[in-house]
């Protein structure tokens, strides 16, 4: 290994020795031509438009979640111009301790489930990544078919029940542990890794496990980060399996509790339903749930992006 990993900031720029501050662009590599003003402006405009198209509706959601029923009723629904801010919707969600307990459950299910899914998927993807290996096409077809043929609700329920998984957390993990799509994407990246590198490792006596662990995995950090995220998001936002397989309310994960809290606001009179006479609006609760759903994304996003740095995966390959 003669070359080191390439980092833009390590390029020699004599008149600016300090690291660029965050608002400054890092220096471009010497070989890169100066960007044209029009190009920069065009890029900036496109990106700003995309971001604005998202932030404006997000603004409506956030403002509505912070509005009282009076404000919402005056606006006839979603609020665009805030009139006083109240946190009662969030208080309603966080009071009662259900959300805390459900958050812990969801975090644990997500962590355990994602770890399990990733292990199974990475192993499977690697096991299928060698062209010409025995039976890999048959296995691929077997997996692929499940993407298009689905089982009905009743057979699946009866299976989970027969396995004794109802009212256990395994029911939230095992039936949805394998995503064939994710395995295919992983495999797609694995097959792109230099075969020469793998072959030379094999000549050095490395077995498949070691090759996977020491060569393939480090070279696939970006896609592994992506698939981890896909699985984590899947576990985090799943709710239907819980509503089907769990009877014990105390076991419910966060999404189900959130859905229940929204329903509680929606339901009008009849059947002993509570009527909220105060300042709390069901719509605000609904929007607050949405905002809270975005929080983990905002928190986790940097961790995933870390793995997307340009060219970060190539250093090890060169010799």
């Amino acid at each position, binding site marked *: 290994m003669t070359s080191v990993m390439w980092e833009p900031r390590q390029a020699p720029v004599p008149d600016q020795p300090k690291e660029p501050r965050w608002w400054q662009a890092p220096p471009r590599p010497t070989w890169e031509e100066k960007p044209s003003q029009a190009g920069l402006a065009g890029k900036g405009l496109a990106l700003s438009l995309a971001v604005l198209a998202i932030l404006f509706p997000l603004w409506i959601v956030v403002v509505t979640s912070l509005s*009282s*029923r*009076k404000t*919402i*009723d*005056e*606006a*006839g*629904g979603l609020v665009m111009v805030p009139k006083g801010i109240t946190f009662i919707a969030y208080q309603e969600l966080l009071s*009662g301790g*259900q959300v805390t307990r459900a958050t812990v459950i969801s975090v644990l299910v997500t962590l355990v489930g994602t770890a399990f899914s990733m292990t199974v998927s990475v192993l499977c993807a690697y096991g299928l990544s060698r062209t010409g290996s025995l039976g890999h096409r048959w296995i691929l077809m077997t997996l692929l078919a499940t993407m298009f043929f689905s089982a009905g*609700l*009743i057979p699946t*329920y*009866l299976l989970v*029940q027969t396995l004794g998984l109802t009212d256990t957390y395994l029911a939230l993990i095992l039936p949805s542990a394998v995503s064939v799509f994710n395995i295919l994407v992983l495999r797609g990246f694995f097959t792109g890794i230099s075969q020469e590198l793998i072959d030379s490792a094999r000549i050095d006596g490395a077995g498949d496990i070691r090759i996977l662990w020491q060569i393939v995995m480090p070279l696939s950090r970006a896609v592994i980060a992506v698939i981890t995220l896909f699985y984590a998001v899947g576990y985090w936002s799943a709710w*239907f399996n819980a*509503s*089907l397989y769990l*009877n*014990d*309310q*105390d076991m419910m994960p966060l999404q*189900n*509790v959130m*859905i*229940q*809290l929204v*329903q*509680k606001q*929606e*339901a*009008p*009179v*009849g*059947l*002993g*339903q*509570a*009527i*909220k*006479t*105060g*300042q709390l*609006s*069901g*719509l605000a609760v609904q929007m607050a749930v949405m905002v809270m759903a975005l929080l983990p994304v905002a928190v986790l996003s940097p961790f995933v992006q870390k793995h997307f740095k340009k060219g970060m995966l190539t250093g090890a390959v060169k010799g």
Partner: protein
Amino acid sequence: MTPNSATSGPSRRSFLASTAVAAAAVAGGVPLLSACGGSDSGSREGTTSDKDAKKILPAYVASDVVTPDIPSKNGSAVGFTSKLDLAGLKTSVPKKLGKGGEVTIMSPFWGSPPKGDNPYYRAMNDLIGVDVRWQNQDGNTYDQKLGAVLASSDVPDVVVVPGWNMGGKIPSAIISKFADLGPYLSGDKVKEYPNLAAIPTGAWQRSIFGGALRGVPMPASYVPNIVPCYRQDIFEEEGYEVPESADEFLALCKDITNAKAKRWACGDMKWTAFNSFGVLSGGEKPLGWNVVDGKLIYRIETEEFLEALEWTRKLFAAGVVHPDFELGKSQATDPAPKFAAGEFLIWNNDISTWYGQTASQATQNPDFKIWGMDIFGHDGGAPTLWATNPANIFAFVSKKASESVVRDALAVANVVAAPYGTKEYMLTNYGVEGTHYTVKDGVPIKNDKGNNEVINAYVMITSPAATIAHPDFPAVAKGQVEWQQRMGASTKKSAFWGMQITEPARFTNLSNDLEQLEDDVVRGRKKVSDVQQFVSEWKSKGGDKLRDWYQKILDENGSAAN
């Protein structure tokens, strides 16, 4: 709380869904000849003849524990308008009927269920003498859970099934998985459970599935439940008169609408149009049939049906309907804030909207006043209304349950069916005084704990005969009951009213697309002639055979029409 509102489901979404599902709903019943056997192997189509039904129906013994302020008339609910007097509460269940056993109950739940061990459940279980274990399930996905649970061999002791979840093969499941309660309730046996004996016979008749009394019904008023509610405060302010004919209504709507100022007259008035033009009920398929000039006809074959659609189309075409309602029944936006904002002034919805909107706006919008307008006859005369079913939510007991479990389940129902003004009613509907609610100036007010714990669950099992009581807004309760009584005077029963009828499977999809076609017509995407086309196809594809099938039931069973 208005138990009668239960007919149309408790949440906005399921309320809307209920009409769609109800339109496709089929209910249980074995054919007449094998009714006595009531065996599982037999066909499950048809209904149970009057004569057979009489043998298994519970006796009716009116409750005299409490006298309502407004007695029932013309099929209305009973009304209570006086202040609540805690000291004067009566007792309708003098001794515990429960034997202390454990009963698991699965029931739909809208909202977040409380912990299994909470003061409300404990107090109820103490009063009943039964250890009820609740399996509260998400009400919006209940149909799927229900379908799966009933297909397993592990059915809870008691299962609550609302009518709108009775689609497809569920009636078949009801017949094969649930116990015959006849041995415990038929005839005078019901007198052991006095509050159940006070449930009107019509509601019990609806509980006959497959020739046996299988359900405990939640009784409801049969007066149509869709009320055209309007913003009385704005009407008074602007000097609008409540319209008394279809033409007046349209003229008023044009007067009200000013799109530039973000004001429209009404929501989708299709249901009111059906009532106003005297179209046979579309709530459940058997109700849509009636004898006209000696011949059975279905609602969609009538002139009134087309007229009602044409009139609703006029409203949409005139631009007086709030644009959000063009989204159709799966609308993504809640009309309530728009109604509160005055974006539209007339909203036809379940009668519970009347009280619900009053209560929720009271504290922060004191000017807001919602009232129900009488359904106008389209020509300005009295309307012809068609009765809805007198029960639409049922509690069933598993076939595998032992006798003592059945008795315990009935003990639960007997407490829940206690009439307004009793200790049992207050506990069931408001919880424990001091813990869940306090009484101020004769008005019980639930606190947060009450709002979190005293919802759904027990009240899903059954209820007393249709009751309207709003101690906080007695004027609304009075208005609702009187509305029901006035409308009830114009309400007629169609040929198959109150019967639990299962159409043969081959007919169930016949009018599947009809509701959508109606919505397409009123929104101008299809023409009335398309409906006529649909009707003629409906006839040839099986509608005429279905008519013969119903005719046979009519011949053997007699008509319920009055």
